[in-house]
Each structure stands twice: as C-alpha cells, then as structure tokens.
C-alpha cells in the first residue's frame, strides 16, 4: 500500500472510498471460480492506516507487516515501556533497510536511543552501526559516506540518527554543515521534545508551556517559554537540501514511505520524526501512538514533505482536534488544566496550532492558501 500511488490529499484526509482505494494489487481468483476476474482489493476495513492487511499483496505491504522485516533494532533493548523512539527507530531503519536492499550503515548520536540499544555487552542493532559522540553524528555520517564513495560502494546508503537534542541543539553545527555540503546522508531526528536521556530537560525542540526539569511548571509563566525553540524541518528546508520531511510514529505508511523515498535519493536528506516519550511527556505507555496521532490532528505537529526547499505535500488532518485533547493527556501540560488551570496558555497553544494549520494548509479548507504566515 504505497502512498505514492495515491492522490496525496485524498489519502491524507481520509477521502472518499474511491480516492482512498489503496490500489493494492489484486486478490487473484475470486471465490472458487478462477475466471471470476481480478479486481483491486479495497481495505475499507482498516484503510491505509493499520500496519498491514492480511489480504494485501506481499509486494505492497508495509515493511513492518512483513514477518521477515529486518528488525534493525531488536528485542532486549532497554528502552522504557512504550518508547516512541524505539518504535520510530525500528520503523525508520527497517524501511531504510528495505529500500537500500540491506546495504545500510547507521550512525547514531549519543542519547536514549544509543544508551538503551548498546550497553555493553549487548547490542540490539542488527545492522552496521556506529556511535561516536552526541554532537557529531552528521559529520561522522559524512565520513562514512565519503568512505563509501571513495571505495565505490555506491550501493551503501548512510543514515545518521539523533534525538532532538543531538539534532537541533548540540548537533546543529555539524548538521548544518552536512546539509550545506549536501553530503550523501539521510539524517533522521527522533524528536521527543526534550533531553530525555538525562532526565527530561528542555531542548530547543521543547514546546511552549511544557514542563521539563529545567522549565518547571512554577510561577506566572510555567513550563517552557513561548517564543523560543527551533523549527528544524524549516531550517533544513532553508538549506535547500533535496529532501525534508516530517512524520510521526502514528502514521507508519507515511513514515515508511518518506524514509524509503529519502533513502533512495542522493545528497542531504532530513526526516524529522515525532516520537512521544511516555516518561518525559507523562503519558501512559500505551498511549504513545495515540498522543502522536493527536499531535498531528491538532495541527501542532504538521506532517509534510519538501523538496529542494519547497513544501511539496502535506498530510491533511483527518479528524481535527482541539489542542486540549492533546495537551490534556500529558502530565507535562497538567498545570494548564484543573482548577484554576491556565485557559489563557491553552489558547496561546491553540493559536500556534491554528497558525500551523494555516501555514501548511492542513485542513482542506485551507488548501491552496499561501504557506507562509508569520513566525511560529
């Protein structure tokens, strides 16, 4: 069920049955009469939203539905229960592995992902993997890519991955350099919106009003300040690199599609994946995907892709939600609710969501509107 076979808008928005037809091959013979004709399978049951479908043609399945997926990040890792990053990393790297035909090397920045995956004497990776430092994953990946190029290994794709701290903060210098040189690296940021590895401190990706250990929910302006933080996908776009995309662990099809597309491109590519952190966000471990989904359905996390610096497609909001629905399930925003609560702050966050919806045209009614509208 590849999204690239579909009109983007229709799928993103749920669309009509016809438009949402996943176009997934044929079911072969119908009934017991081989001559009854071949027809396109329609998965109205789970549409293109669930991981798989027993009726789909194997060639059209998601990587994650495949019993022989590479499990790039295997069992036994020490991530917390319900870790979005563990999920996102396996999603992304399995997809990259499939796209690259297994010819993949991954470079990892320091952070949760690195710590929980490779404590001596055990590693959870099943791929060629290198960890160097917190800030240098993009540069290390550049080195790997250069080595591959000089050795004529054009078949090998290089992925670098980091959390939001390693991407938007400490690693940004190297990342920007990698972008600017258009090095042949796919950089994946697993954004859980704070320094989770060190105990939930604010990063440049922490959203306004979120409580972290360094932006406590105390005082007249509780949580992370408004008007700060980096919108890295847009900064990446400003470098004019061939490919920039955002995704979440809540839409596997979209994520895999973007990773596969990015894997097969050349030059600097950037995919920014929202990966909720039950610990840092204060969500139930079972809600990791649900909260990521709400991030998209409120408009707070716009899902889109951009080529050569321009947005080329956006995932429309399917069931628009007020920000309360998203904030309300996270303890890091608990200070905004209850008695007396802070409806004024919630309103400011809603305004941010509305802005994002307008900027990217996330609702059908906004389709075609100019994307740029003020600062976030």
């Amino acid at each position, binding site marked *: 069920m590849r999204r690239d076979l579909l009109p983007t808008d229709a799928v993103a928005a749920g669309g009509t049955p016809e438009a949402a037809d996943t176009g997934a091959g044929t079911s072969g013979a119908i009934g017991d009469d081989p001559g009854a004709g071949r027809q396109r399978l329609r998965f109205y049951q*789970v549409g293109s939203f669930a991981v798989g479908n027993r009726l789909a043609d194997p060639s059209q399945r998601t990587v994650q539905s495949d019993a022989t997926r590479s499990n790039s990040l295997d069992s036994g890792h020490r*991530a917390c*229960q319900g870790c979005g990053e563990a999920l996102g990393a396996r999603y992304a790297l399995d997809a990259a592995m499939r796209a690259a035909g297994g010819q993949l090397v991954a470079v990892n920045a320091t952070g949760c992902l690195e710590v929980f995956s490779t404590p001596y004497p055990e590693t959870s990776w099943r791929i060629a993997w290198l960890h160097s430092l917190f800030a240098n994953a993009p540069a290390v990946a550049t080195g790997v890519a250069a080595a591959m190029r000089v050795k004529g290994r054009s078949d090998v794709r290089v992925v670098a991955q980091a959390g939001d701290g390693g991407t938007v903060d400490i690693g940004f210098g190297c990342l920007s350099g990698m972008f600017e040189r258009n090095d042949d690296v796919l950089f994946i940021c697993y954004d859980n919106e704070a320094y989770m590895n060190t105990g939930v401190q604010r990063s440049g990706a922490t959203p306004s009003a979120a409580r972290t250990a360094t932006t406590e929910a105390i005082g007249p302006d509780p949580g992370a300040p408004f008007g700060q933080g980096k919108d890295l996908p847009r900064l990446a776009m400003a470098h004019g690199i061939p490919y920039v995309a955002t995704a979440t662990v809540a839409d596997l099809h979209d994520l895999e599609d973007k990773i596969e597309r990015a894997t097969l491109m050349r030059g600097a590519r950037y995919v920014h994946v929202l990966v909720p952190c039950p610990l840092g966000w204060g969500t139930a471990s079972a809600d990791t995907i649900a909260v990521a989904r709400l991030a998209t359905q409120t408009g707070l996390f716009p899902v889109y892709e951009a080529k050569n610096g321009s947005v080329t497609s956006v995932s429309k909001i399917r069931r628009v939600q007020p920000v309360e629905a998203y904030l309300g399930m996270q303890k890091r925003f608990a200070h905004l609710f209850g008695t007396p609560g802070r409806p004024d702050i919630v309103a400011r966050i809603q305004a941010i969501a509305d802005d994002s919806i307008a900027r990217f045209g996330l609702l059908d009614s906004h389709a075609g509107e100019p994307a740029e509208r003020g600062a976030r």
Partner: protein
Amino acid sequence: MERPFAITLDVGSSRANHTGSWRVERPVYLDYLPPCNDACPAGENTQRWLYLAESGSYEAAWRALVEDNPFPATMGRVCFHPCETACNRVKVDEAVGINAVERFLGDVALDKGWELPRPGSAADGPARPGTASGRRVLVVGAGPGGLSAAYHLARRGHQVVVADANAEAGGMMRYGIPAYRLPREVLAAEIDRLRPLGVELQLGHVVRDLAAERRDGAYDAVYLGVGAQLARRTDIPAGDSGRVLDALSLLRAAGDGSIELGRRVAVYGGGDTAMDVARTARRLGATDPVIVYRRTRDVMPAHDEELDGAIAEGITVRWLSTIDRFEGGKLVLERMTLGPDNKPVPTGELEELEADTLVLALGESADLSLVEGLDGVQVHDGSVLVDASMMTGAAGIFAGGDVIAGSRTVTDAIGHGKAAARGIDAVLGGEVRAPATRHELASFERLNTWYYDDAPRTIRPELDRIRRQSSFDEVFGSLDETNALFEARRCLSCGNCFECDNCYGVCPDNAVIKLDGAQLDGPPQRRYVVDYDFCKGCGICAAECPCGAIEMIPELI
C-alpha cells in the same frame, strides 16, 4: 574480524536480555462476541463469514453461514437484520450491509449449485455419517423453524419427516411474505436443497392427533413449528357494503392471484405485515392504499425500511387513528392522542376515509389445538411454554417459532429450529453439550476506530417506483461481487483479530510474533502470539488494536 573488547558488539546480542521481566501487565489475545453475532436470532457467526467473504472465499463464507442457517438467499431478503442494528459501525458511519452480503452469498450458492453439508456432519454435533443415529423425528410445519430444525437434525444424523398441511413448503415465507420481497423460486431452491440431506417433506399432510402421529410414525421426538395462522380481529361495526379481509388471507390469495381488491384499500395495523399488505394492495391495483395506525411513527412496530418502502410506493399513513366503523364505502376514524406509556387515548374527534376494502393486519395467533390435551405441554397467554432446549413440558416434544412466546420473525424461527435440533439431539442420546460460554461482548469502546477508513455502505439497487407499483418483481436487487466484497470489508471485526498486523507493527520491543497458520477453509490465518520473554507490557498493542482483540491483564505478583 577481530573485534575490540567491549566497544564493538555482535549484532542482535541483546536478545539475551529478557525484558519480559519488566512487565506488570501482559497483553492477551481474546475473542469477544461481536454484536452482530450476539444480535442474530438465528445464531449466525456473522463476523466469521464476513471475514471469509472479505478475502473472496465465498464458498467458505457460505459454508460458515449455513452452519447455522440453511437459507441465506432467503434470509438475505427477508431478515429484519438485527445484526445491522447492533453493528458497531453505526457509530463510525453506517452499519455494515450484512444482510446484503448474506443474500449475495446465498445467491452465489444457488447459482453455483453448492450443496449443504452432508447429513451427520454438524460441526457442533456428534460425528454420525448419514442417518446413523437411527432415530426419527417428526417436524410439524414446513415453515422456517420447522425446516431449520429438520436441517439441523439431519446434520446430526437423524431421520426427519416434515409434515405440513399446505401444498408447498415454506410456511410464512411462502404464504406470508410477498414475492416482491422474496421471489418464490429463490425460496423453493433453498428448500429443495434440504432434500439431499434425507429430509422427507410430507406436504398436504394435516397433523391432527400428535400422539397418534408420533406413535404410528415411531418418532422419537417431535418438533412443533405450526406457526401463527389465526388472524386477530377487532370488533369493527361494518355494513354490507364494507369488505373486510384479514392480512394473511390477502397475502396468501395475492400469491396465487385469486383476489380482486377495490381501488380504495385501507389497512389497519402498524406492523411489517401491515406494510406488506398495503404494498401488495398497491400491486394488485389499489390506487392509494392507506394505513391506519393508532399511534405514531416512532413507536410503530414495523421496521423503518418497510415503512419507507411503503411510503416510497405511494402509500399514506393515517397516524393516531382508530377505526370507529366501516359503512357505505367509508371508514369513520377517530383521532387519538398518545397518553402516558405511549398508550393511544381517544379524542372523540371523528373523520372519514373512503374505502372499498379494509384489511385487518392486527397480528396472528397460534392454533394450539394440536397440543391441547397433550400431557405436560403447558400453554400460557396463547403460547406454548418451552425450556432452554426448546422442549415443552412433554418429553420429546419441542416447539419453536410463532407458537412460543417472543419475537415472531423468520429469523427467530430459524434460530428456534436450530436450538431445538440441538435439544432433540441431546434427548436422543447425543452428547449433552454444555452451551458454549458466551464471550464478553465486543463493545464499541473496545475499538480503535481511527484505523478504519471512512466507507459509507453500499446502496443496494432498487427497482424503480413505477414497476414497484405494478409488479411483484423483487424490489431490492443483489449486490454485485465488487459491492459485496466492499461491504464485507467494511466489517470492523469487533473483538476478534482480523490480522491487520497492527500489534506486530506497533510493538516497540518486537515482542509480537506473527504466525503463519495454514487454514483449510480460507486464506492462511496469521494470527499472533506475544513473546513474553521480551514484552514489557506497555500496552500499545492493545491500545492500537483496531478491533479490540487484545486485553491487558495484570501479572500475578
């Protein structure tokens, strides 16, 4: 490769770290009772056959269906489909068109000549090839209940004789349901399919003395499915000019074309039968049939789609009206209001309605003369009393359908027949099976509806209005295969794994194992098991299971 100590590790070695020990809750795959199954009076495993139909395995789907109900083509036309009323999809968009898919399967089966399972092959009964039990059962009444009982008994290896006073089998299906809803050839074909099972139909055979009949025929048991044939009447003063008929007579006569109605026909009643009568009258030439009903639409017993069908054919309804008298081509109606408990209260206001014929569709009563005097058979309020196995107070005598209390529908009767067959089998020395534990209901709240794509139901083709007013051609057409498949795939599979791979995909610990189970009657079934060595119990699999088939259960500490 000589690897540096500690900093360089062999891939996948973390599998030595069994993170399952972190778990305080464990996910368990459970099968819940889907609301469609729960609501089906015939006890159909609706979701199961929809599941099979989804993959295009129509014969497998039909076989799963006829495990419970031998008349899919019929039921796909006449069932009032409580399954759809119960369907959770109603809360997403619209109910799955289960009934239409059933009809599609039934029609495909007739078309392809698929045969019912062999005698003695009941999936839920003892294995007895042919009529190996050597027991004989008399079924009185070849209506839906009787035929259902006969079918299920035959499948349990018993020899069955069905006696019916009418010239043709089918009971109310044949004589009470208009042909525009159920073409007679469809009904006949499905009934004929019972014969290869060894079911003997004795038509035109009136059973008067049940005890004698049983003794003479050496029947080990009897199923009583005589239905309700006695029209209920009400005392309406009527002059000579007024022609008053009862609904069953009219419907029966319409079936053999032996009746002439006037132009102006009034129908008194508010059930499905009243609708059938009015619509039949329209087809027989009545220009503007009127239904007179004492109460309002929202409390009317007729199903919405029957009423809508009638209105679409130009039939009008006089709401909140009773018939005071019928005189000189005129009905005098009295206006009512609704009192407490929706009881109609007379207002004293009168009005007139021109009518040539008044048809009373006020329901029917069972003719219980057959059981009068039978030892042990108890009757209460016009209905025979039965126990859970459908047995009357008399040993070996079972009853179902309209003769017992409860909902009087074809589907209910089919369910009764099946239940009685099971009861009879037990009495005749079959294994006494404890009733299967009913699983917990798969409530809507269990579902994660995000995953289901928006897909409004398919509209069945309808006959155009002009032809509907003038012929007994079937009003609703069948779904074609594409539509049937589409409709089947709208099933949410409430409470039962349908192999969407979500749990397999969303587990952050790769702790869900995808099975590769070959399955005889359909596509390979790839359900899943949890690898408790690694499952940390986060619960994402359960939260993201579209159909709510995973439950988190606390670990015993």
